[in-house]
């Protein structure tokens, strides 16, 4: 039973709540600082400009995916098709990226459009068909993978124009994928915090019935969230294809799990309505720094997987425990 607030005792009641919120918001920052400090002490290689830029480059694709899936998770849904759609979008973009056929922008746009179409399909089946998001996106995960194999004929799409591969290069010493992640994050953060549609996403995830009773078109909001997620997944697919200089139909396997893990570590609730882009980015960074640290310390990739699994469950367990207090 929450205690009713009396006008004469607001201070005492507010402080713990505010402190809890601070801890909730900055708990992950503290974790990031601690992990960073430990790694800096353990190996001199960690705290160098080259390594940090490298970390940023490594997390950029997972970051773009995580930002996209944050939209879906905030509405209380889920998207398991990210990895397959990454592959499909990459294959499509690569097929249009042969030299001298189309302007390179066209290849990029086709990749993004492919992801958008997959996301919109997910959203339509969830909202119009009333099928659970888990099932719909599981189906899309399988179907998009198959489509990627069909489009590519089961072989990597190579012979890619160098114009596209430049998308994985640097500008002024900063990797372009990192700049893309930064732009996507800022735009998404501004959108969720400052627009009506963004607010409605939180409302739908918080209490769907109440949102409907407040005149919000719940189906439209959900469709929008899946579509944005799909578009960003398409973008991530294009960036990945540029980085590996081919369209790989087998790329991106299990990427959705890393993305969802990062979002949840960042404090977004799987039941929707709570969280945001800031937390998601911190979750992405935390996972990236730990990966990088374990690499630097020459921990075998077998053990890395175990550590990652423990961290995912542990972070969420801590978060829920804090919230229950």
């Amino acid at each position, binding site marked *: 039973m929450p205690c009713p607030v009396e006008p004469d005792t607001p201070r005492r009641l507010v402080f713990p709540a505010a402190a809890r919120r601070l801890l909730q918001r900055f708990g992950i920052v503290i974790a990031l600082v601690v992990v960073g400090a430990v790694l800096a002490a353990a190996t001199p290689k960690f705290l160098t400009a080259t390594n940090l830029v490298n970390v940023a480059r490594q997390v950029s694709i997972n970051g773009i995916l995580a930002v996209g899936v944050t939209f879906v998770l905030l509405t209380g849904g889920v998207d398991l098709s990210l990895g397959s759609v990454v592959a499909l979008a990459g294959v499509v973009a690569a097929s249009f990226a042969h030299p001298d056929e189309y302007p390179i922008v066209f290849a990029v746009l086709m990749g993004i459009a492919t992801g958008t179409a997959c996301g919109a399909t997910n959203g339509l089946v969830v909202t119009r068909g009333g099928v659970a998001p888990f099932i719909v996106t599981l189906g899309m995960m399988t179907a998009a993978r198959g489509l990627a194999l069909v489009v590519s004929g089961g072989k990597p799409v190579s012979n890619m124009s160098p114009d596209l591969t430049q998308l994985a290069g640097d500008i002024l010493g900063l990797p372009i994928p990192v700049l893309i992640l930064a732009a996507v994050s800022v735009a998404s953060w501004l959108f969720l915090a400052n627009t009506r549609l963004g607010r409605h996403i939180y409302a739908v995830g918080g209490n769907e019935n109440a949102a409907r*009773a*407040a*005149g*919000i078109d719940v189906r439209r909001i959900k469709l929008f969230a899946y579509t944005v997620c799909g578009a960003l997944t398409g973008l991530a697919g294009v960036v990945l294809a540029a980085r590996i200089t081919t369209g790989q139909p087998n790329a991106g396997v299990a990427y959705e799990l890393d993305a969802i893990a990062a979002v949840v570590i960042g404090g977004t609730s799987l039941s929707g309505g709570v969280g945001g882009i800031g937390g998601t980015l911190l979750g992405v960074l935390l996972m990236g720094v730990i990966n990088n640290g374990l690499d630097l310390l020459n921990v075998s990739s077998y053990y890395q997987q175990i550590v990652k699994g423990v961290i995912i469950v542990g972070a969420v367990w801590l978060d829920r425990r804090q919230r229950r207090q």
Partner: protein
Amino acid sequence: MQRDRPTTDGAVFEARHISKAFAGVQALVDVSLTLRSGAVHALMGENGAGKSTLMRVLGGLLRADSGEILLGGRPILLRSPQDASRHGIAMIHQELLPVPDMTVAENILLGREPASRLVGWIDRRAMQREARRLLDLLEADLPLQWKMRRLSVAQMQTVEIAKTLGQDARVLIMDEPTAAISQREVDALFRVIATLRDRGVAIVYITHKMDEVFRIADTITVLRDGSHVGTCPAGEIDRQALIALMVGRSVDDAAVRPRACRGKVVLTVRGLSRAGAFQDVDFELRRGEVLGITGLMGAGRTELLSAVFGLVPADAGEICVAGQPVRIRRPADAMRHGIGMVTEDRQGFGLIHTMPVKHNMTLAALGGYCRGPFIRHAQETAAAEAGIAALGIKTAGARQAVGELSGGNQQKVVLARSLLADPSIVLLDEPTRGIDIGAKAEVHALIARLAEEGKAVVLVSSELPEALALSDRLLVMRQGTVAAELDPSHTTQEEVLRYAMPR
């Protein structure tokens, strides 16, 4: 009423001095009840009188704060429904608890499946036989292999009764068992009750239906506001006296509102129906008036309001706003036509617990604080703070989590949300349920103020004094239809209840 008298002959089951409070609200105060073997004891009272709470205590679903329960003169402890059933106390619930994807036979014998001792292999034939026997007792002809989800509510109720009959109870509690079943099934049920009574079972029977009470009850006990107000043999009381006992209190606990002169018609509802909820409802609503709608639980009031607001659209009928027919398929449609609603289910359809007070308040009117797609935060905050001040909401600030507020203040947040959208028609469904007296008075004052400002208000309330004090006109609903339109200043609670009682 009996006071610590030693158990007299035939008294199998006694509840003595039972009290129970929920979150500081006293639901039962020192209530005693004595059941005799081979007798039907009817329990009556208005909505919220404490009947269901008492029965849940007797069925082991709730623990009383104080008091004792005696079976055959010996005190017993009821900590769970299993305890109750071990003592031979069985209960038929008001709400149905079917397992929808299991068959009729499986539901009837749920938890008592005839099975081989060794590995628990279910003897399906014995199961069919026993289920058929119990349904035959009720003269109900239900296919045993049907899944429960195929059945109507009445048929499910019959299954629920059959389930209880199988338990060979000494004490049988029936909480409005006829609320949803057909006349044929009611007659069969009454024959079963008579058989059980003759076999010496003590039966408690809760109902709102007068004629049923006089048909089967041997003794009647009336509860009001959680207290015991009287027990007498059914032969020594008539319908009028019974209603007077149930109502009892005076009307003056809600201040009577000065009636304003009424303006032009803003909302017309004609022939509105939704299958299974309400049929052929007509009413008009004018500027500056409060139209009260009352009735017993399940009379279709909430469903009617939900249809006008588009939460669950009607199947048939017409809704006109300011004389123009409008199509309302969802709340957004209703809001576009200037209709606002505060739902009865504050947690389910009102609050968004993950959002602060401010965002909860501005949700329905957010478009008013935007430039293009962007929220103007300063304007939004100002609007929320104005709302907090106007309704006297006690918060630590607009950014406080809405879950930390008291029930009354949460209700005011939901009210503020509807009002910020500036509706001309305001639908209020039980706006004072579950909030304390102080907040209640403030909500009453707010309703009066809305009418004075020229808004048209529909007030659904189960509390008769509240409905009578605040309404300009009062509709009484009964079993999905409008049973009467009364003038609140020239009617009595007795008259209202007479129309509200199912025939």
